[in-house]
């Protein structure tokens, strides 16, 4: 009998019970809504980019320089070239620095100095990129070099890439099993050769992932390049002169009042999103497989 009453109170809902269930339903609905918001917004933005950007893409878009308003045709080749050059120089600066720091952190650091390095790297990674832009602008553009230059842009990008490379590579190096290091050391191989010949090659995929991730990040940066490399309508391989880049080109095209330039801005955006999206997708899939 008692168990029956208990049973009834669970099954047949009183007014309070109905309210609880209603609240639960509503909240479930809201949570589902919130969960789908991110994906919906992503699809919306990507859809707009593809819709407006596809008509802009043709051969001239990738091979010619931007033309003044009114002349039909023209493309963003100098911007693509400039982005690639600056990324290459930035990689040449940040990869040795980042790799060395990561090796120090994972192989040599014990104690407080390692913690300080890690902490500073995180702070550097959290700096707004415009602050890094202003730093390079004040230092190189206004003082040392004295003008807007691709070199200044590359240095700014290198500072942006550095913390990403350092922290990714450090995490990967830590995943290399100690037994590998011990086996190599037991064979009489000195420590530095163990690190360069055994530890790094084992972590090769992860190291490449870190570098690609940082390139994808730096490739989309606009504000620091606007302040340092400024932009250029012509082909320019001189690192000491103003250099075009894809993101800055998008900005210049977008804020201009011409429809043709707007289409080109969408086209450049499509190219940028495709490249960066693919790079990030590949690295994400790679790291995901490593973890599991």
């Amino acid at each position, binding site marked *: 009998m008692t168990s029956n009453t208990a049973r009834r109170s669970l099954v047949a809902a009183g007014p309070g019970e109905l309210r609880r269930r209603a609240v639960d339903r509503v909240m479930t609905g809201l949570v589902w809504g919130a*969960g789908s918001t991110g994906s919906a917004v992503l699809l919306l933005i990507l859809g707009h980019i593809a819709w407006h950007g596809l008509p802009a893409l043709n051969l001239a878009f990738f091979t010619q320089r931007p033309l003044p308003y009114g002349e039909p045709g023209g493309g963003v080749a100098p911007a693509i070239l400039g982005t690639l050059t600056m990324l290459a120089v930035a990689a040449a600066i940040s990869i040795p620095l*980042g790799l060395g720091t990561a090796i120090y952190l994972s192989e040599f650091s014990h104690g407080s100095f390692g913690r300080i390095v890690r902490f500073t790297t995180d702070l550097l990674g959290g700096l*707004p990129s415009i*602050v890094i832009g202003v730093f390079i602008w*004040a230092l190189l553009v206004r003082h040392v070099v004295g003008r807007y230059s691709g070199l200044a842009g590359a240095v700014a990008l290198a500072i942006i890439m*550095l913390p*990403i490379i*350092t922290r990714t590579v450090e995490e990967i190096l830590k995943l290399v099993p100690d037994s590998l290091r011990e086996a190599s050391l037991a064979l009489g191989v000195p420590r530095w050769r163990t690190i360069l010949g055994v530890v790094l090659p084992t972590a090769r995929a992860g190291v490449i992932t870190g570098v690609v991730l940082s390139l994808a990040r730096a490739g989309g940066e606009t*504000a620091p390049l606007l302040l340092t490399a400024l932009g250029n309508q012509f082909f320019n391989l001189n690192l000491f002169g103003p250099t075009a880049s894809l993101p800055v080109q998008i900005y210049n095209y977008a804020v201009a009042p011409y429809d043709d330039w707007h289409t080109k801005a969408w086209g450049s955006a499509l190219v940028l999103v495709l490249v960066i999206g693919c790079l990030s997708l590949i690295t994400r899939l790679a790291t995901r497989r490593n973890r599991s």
Partner: protein
Amino acid sequence: MQIYRLSGRRPRKRIGSLGDRQFEVATTALAVGSIAILGAIIVLLLAYAWPAVTRYGLSFLTTTTWDPVFERFGAAHFTYGTLVTSTVALCLAMPVAVGAALFVAEYAPAWLREPVSFTTELLAVIPSIIYGLWGFMVLGPLMRGTIEPLLKGTIGQLPLVGLLFSGPAVGRDIFTGGVILAIMILPTIMATSREVFRAVPDTQREGMLALGATKWEMVRHAVLPYARGGLIGAAGLGLARALGETMAVTMVIGNSSSAITGSLLTPGYTMASAIANQFTEADKPIYFSAIVEVALVLLLVATLVNLLSRLLVWRYVGSVGADVRGG
């Protein structure tokens, strides 16, 4: 050593140890180099900003006159814009991001978790300039034509709160800046909150469910209270990103120093967008110095927010992804 001597053989010089020492010194030098960059950024920005710091003192942050011709610089317009856009962004993004994190951590069927996490986090990969372009071409006109008139007609009619949505709908204003920022910080807050929710022990959930709680009651009384500190940290990480965001905001906020009316529907500046708009005009040394000081203030605020939020999140999950920078 002793053993070698006794056996009569001279100890062979160990080549490896010399290389080891050099290698360790080299990597340490590189590590010191990484630290030196942050030091150089702070010291040099301070040095370049010093003329403005000494000349204007605290009035730099409290006055609104930004007049290069008469060399009077007060950045209150910019700090106000940064503060308000970031607040709007947090208010809009926080409920959605926490909801999405709850969805992934508690509600979603297993097969849906990865895709939802993944696509939401892809929002963080899209460069700032793309948001700027989209905001400039699509969101701005949409805000002017549809959303802002709607808000003026509803919330704008209420007493007090209505002040936020008064004045003409221009589309390129502080509110639009806040909306675009909200989209950009959504993935940051969502990913961090999700990790915090995952760190909530299952015993908490089971205990609540065993008491007969509905799923929402379980979330409301067991998961959310446990995760509170981490959620505040997640919001802080989003805030740190919003503070420094440049291009997207620059393209939608209207960039004008109109009077501070309290309405969100007025064009404005943020610290970052002011820098991006004015650096080419800095012809006088004191103008240059004032712009560097804006960057220095931005650096200090963003770093402080970043640090505090990391401390909050660290208690729940081991570490925070390095990628929380605003662009």
